[in-house]
């Protein structure tokens, strides 16, 4: 709970996530990212006079899915409200959002933090439309507005202030992202803004019941950024409190490059959003049948899968939590595990070489999955079996893996084509061994005199001579035999 010696930290997170529907929430414009400014707009999402919104059915089922996944109760009746404020990226002068009847509320999310599980309560999950984008023109007194993003469906997920540290905030976001990806409802790409996070944070002296004055942090573009911004804010607030000062309730903008936040210019007046029911949209009933049918589409979620990986596959904690993080990776693991009964070995390869190859090749590509490496589960398993059979060494396997990715060939094909098989022919090995024994008289002598370390040296020499294509185990045995100390 403690982040500092004297103070307790209280954090609540507000996550906005773009739902990955094909079309926008209230019109048929595409939601694709990266189009030329204002080419994905129409009278509805431009808020032109006279245009009217019509709700995208898929958005509702996606939102129910998320609500259920974070254990919320789903409202039987849902409506939209208008949130009124002026901003150039908000073409109607109001945002269609949900105020007093959010789609989902009173949920909880179990996260893994510091090796233990913790419940973070979810206050509410509601739907709204995204705003446009403002581009500030350097050195000019003007900004440019691109309305393409206007009307992209957004889900706002608000947590209770149950988070006690920046690391916990990081773990919460990681868990939430994993869930959203499992549900297949969002890209969760922070760089492209499909997942955005604001944080509320306050400090209070240990033991004090009431919460301290909170500040709101905005403009964090990565999970790491959220953590850094919170750490900075704790230090800042602590310093003020230590000096006998008072925290001002304000919104602060995080500057990632500078590693600090600054107060946003104070508003000319207090916010008064004048929420009222959106008269252009009708209310929606969310009946048990609909909720039930959406529930059926929810896959096993990461936390549950993690538990199962521990119990069914006996995976180590770290490997299990790494693998379940991403649904495709976990699916891949399980596919391999049905073909090959040593799950920990598969896990080692996935968390090791495979993920590192993946990061090397696809780190900047959105929506890439482990399958995009092109290593079919059968191929990975085939490779593991070659090791087991002594056909190749682990070292060679590591060399084969990138080949498999590049050439899309099976390990068997690669090994054959490149002659990478281990030399299992004992006559052939015997010749090489004899050569090594005769040119290393001293170590041979040492070994015969009981110096075990000399054997390792000799094995190394053989491996070197065979370019790693010999089985160390077999070389070991044959050397002992030849030097008369089996």
């Amino acid at each position, binding site marked *: 709970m403690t982040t500092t010696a004297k103070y307790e930290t209280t954090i609540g997170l507000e996550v906005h996530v773009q739902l990955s529907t094909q079309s926008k929430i209230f019109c048929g414009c595409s939601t694709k990212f990266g189009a030329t400014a204002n080419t994905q707009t129409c*009278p509805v999402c*431009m*808020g*032109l*006079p*006279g*245009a*009217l*919104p*019509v*709700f995208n059915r898929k958005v509702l089922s996606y939102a129910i899915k998320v609500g259920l996944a974070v254990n919320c109760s789903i409202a039987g009746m849902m409506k939209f409200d*208008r949130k*009124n404020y*002026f901003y*150039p990226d908000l*073409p*109607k*002068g*109001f945002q269609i959002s949900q105020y007093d009847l959010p789609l989902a509320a009173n949920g909880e999310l179990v996260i893994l933090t510091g090796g233990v599980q913790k419940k973070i309560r979810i206050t509410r999950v509601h739907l709204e439309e995204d705003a446009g984008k403002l581009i500030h023109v350097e050195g000019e*007194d003007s900004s440019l*507005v691109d309305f393409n993003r206007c009307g992209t469906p957004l889900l706002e997920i608000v947590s209770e202030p149950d988070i006690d540290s920046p690391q916990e905030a990081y773990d919460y976001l990681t868990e939430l992202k994993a869930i959203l990806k499992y549900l297949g409802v969002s890209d969760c790409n922070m760089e492209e803004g499909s997942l955005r996070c604001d944080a509320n944070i306050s400090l209070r002296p240990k033991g004090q019941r009431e919460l301290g004055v909170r500040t709101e942090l905005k403009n964090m573009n990565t999970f790491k950024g959220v953590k850094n911004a919170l750490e900075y804010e704790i230090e800042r607030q602590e310093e003020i409190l230590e000096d006998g000062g008072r925290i001002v309730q304000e919104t602060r903008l995080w500057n990632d490059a500078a590693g600090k936040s600054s107060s946003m210019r104070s508003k*000319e007046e207090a916010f*008064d959003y*004048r*929420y*009222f029911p959106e*008269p*252009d*949209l*009708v209310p929606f009933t969310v009946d048990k049948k609909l909720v039930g049918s959406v529930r059926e589409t929810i896959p096993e979620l990461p936390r549950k899968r993690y538990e199962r990986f521990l119990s069914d596959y006996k995976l180590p904690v770290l490997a299990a939590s790494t693998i379940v993080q991403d649904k495709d990776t976990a699916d891949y693991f399980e596919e391999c595990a049905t073909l090959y009964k040593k799950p920990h070995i598969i896990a080692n390869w996935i968390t090791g070489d495979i993920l590192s190859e993946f990061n090397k090749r696809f780190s900047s590509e959105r929506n890439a999955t482990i399958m995009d490496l092109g290593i079919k589960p059968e191929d990975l398993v085939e490779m593991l079996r070659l090791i087991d059979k002594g056909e190749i060494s682990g070292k060679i396997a590591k060399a084969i893996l990138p080949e498999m990715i590049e050439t899309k060939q099976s390990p068997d094909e690669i090994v054959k084509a490149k002659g990478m098989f281990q030399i299992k022919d004992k006559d052939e090995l015997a010749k090489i061994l004899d050569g090594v024994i005769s040119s290393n008289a001293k170590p041979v002598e040492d070994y015969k005199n009981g110096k075990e370390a000399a054997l390792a040296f000799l094995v190394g020499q053989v491996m070197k001579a065979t370019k790693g294509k010999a089985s160390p185990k077999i070389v070991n045995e044959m050397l002992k035999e030849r030097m008369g100390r089996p």
Partner: protein
Amino acid sequence: MPNDLYKLTAYEIRELIKKRDVSPEEAASSFSDRIGRIDDKVNAFISYDKENIKEELKRIKGKEAGALYGVPVAVKDNICVEGRLTTCGSKILEGFKPPYNATVIENLRREGAIVIGRANMDEFAFGSSCETSCYGPTRNPWDLERIPGGSSGGAAASVAAGEAAISLGSDTGGSIRQPAALCGVVGMKPTYGRVSRYGLIAFASSLDQIGPFARDMRDCALLLNVISSYDPKDSTSVDRKVPDYTNALVNDIKGVRIGIPKEYFIEGIDAQVKDSVSSAIKLLEKLGAKVDEVSLPHTDHAVSTYYIIGPAEASSNLARFDGVQYGLRAKGPLLDMYKDTRAAGFGDEAKRRIILGTYVLSSGYYDAYYLKALKVRTKMREDFEKAFESFDCIVTPTSPTPAFKIGERVDDPLSMYLSDIFTIPANLTGIPGVSIPCGFAETDLPIGLQILARPFNEEMLIRVGYTFQENSAFHKKRPRL
């Protein structure tokens, strides 16, 4: 040969064109000549352009003859027509040409109608007199010193003056029915959801409805046939079969139960209006209707309820006029740009309503005003539901007075607001209503009779209105201009 086609009804024009006795060009030029002769006086149009009419005529050339083929229609200036100026009578929409058509425009064009011009209106439909337009007031064709009613004053006056055969207006609190009454024409507000609002520049989304103006009930039914449709682009439009409304043009009201709400005949109502309406009711009774008194106990609260809900929705609907995408833009840093654009672009009445609406929604006042009004709205709906258990329709005066003088009420918003007292309840409850000519005050000022019916029972309005019309001659009298 002098072209007197402008004196005919849409139905008559349509029949002549069908028989090839006249061409759409002849019909259009009769009306456009008429506009040229008299619109300096009436000012029923904000924009009217012969080039546009040529384009409209070209569009229908060789097309299959539709229900309104070649009929010139005036369209209120708050209904979007692609590529044509659409201003809402406001400076803030200066030069604005929508990049899309309202659904009613698509419907009109499908049936071959000719949009002859854009009708004047109170700015953003805020008003009952058509005086708040930044393009100057429209004048009542019956007395040019008087208002035509509003907000659809231009659409009403254009039909009364023979500048259009029929026209489209919008009705948020009586904006079709009241000017229809004051200009001596038929004006109908259909059931909320009957006509698509897509492309109607919103005043109050939960109250607005587009509807027809016509010289008689037949034209009204014809135009209603064309504009009624379920529109997937309007979430509040209702997916319900559109009947052929001309089938309701039946000269028979025997056994029709008509309720006369006692709350509508109280102080403040002009004696001549009262007399004309009473005579009209007697005629309906003579024609076989069963007339009885009914109570609508919350009538007295209609204006209050309306002046909370209407401005609240309007304050939000008009937030988009901020100078960013279209229309007027003032210079200066962002906040000044907003405030100066809206200060220069909106007229006083628009400002008053935006401020009133912002106030009733603002923090601390929502429950006392807005929520309270929504609850009283429920009460009013219950009043009507109860009344329609015993009655097929309700008959009332449309407006408490005939047309008043231009300028008379501009500085007294409250008295202006009270002139909508009889028309507002239909908007709050979504029911359909029509105003038909039922008499004249001594100075030749028209008086209107309002008929209200259950949701989606426009046929009852047409039947009662048609029967009255067929047994009276008020709708035949035309203003001298």
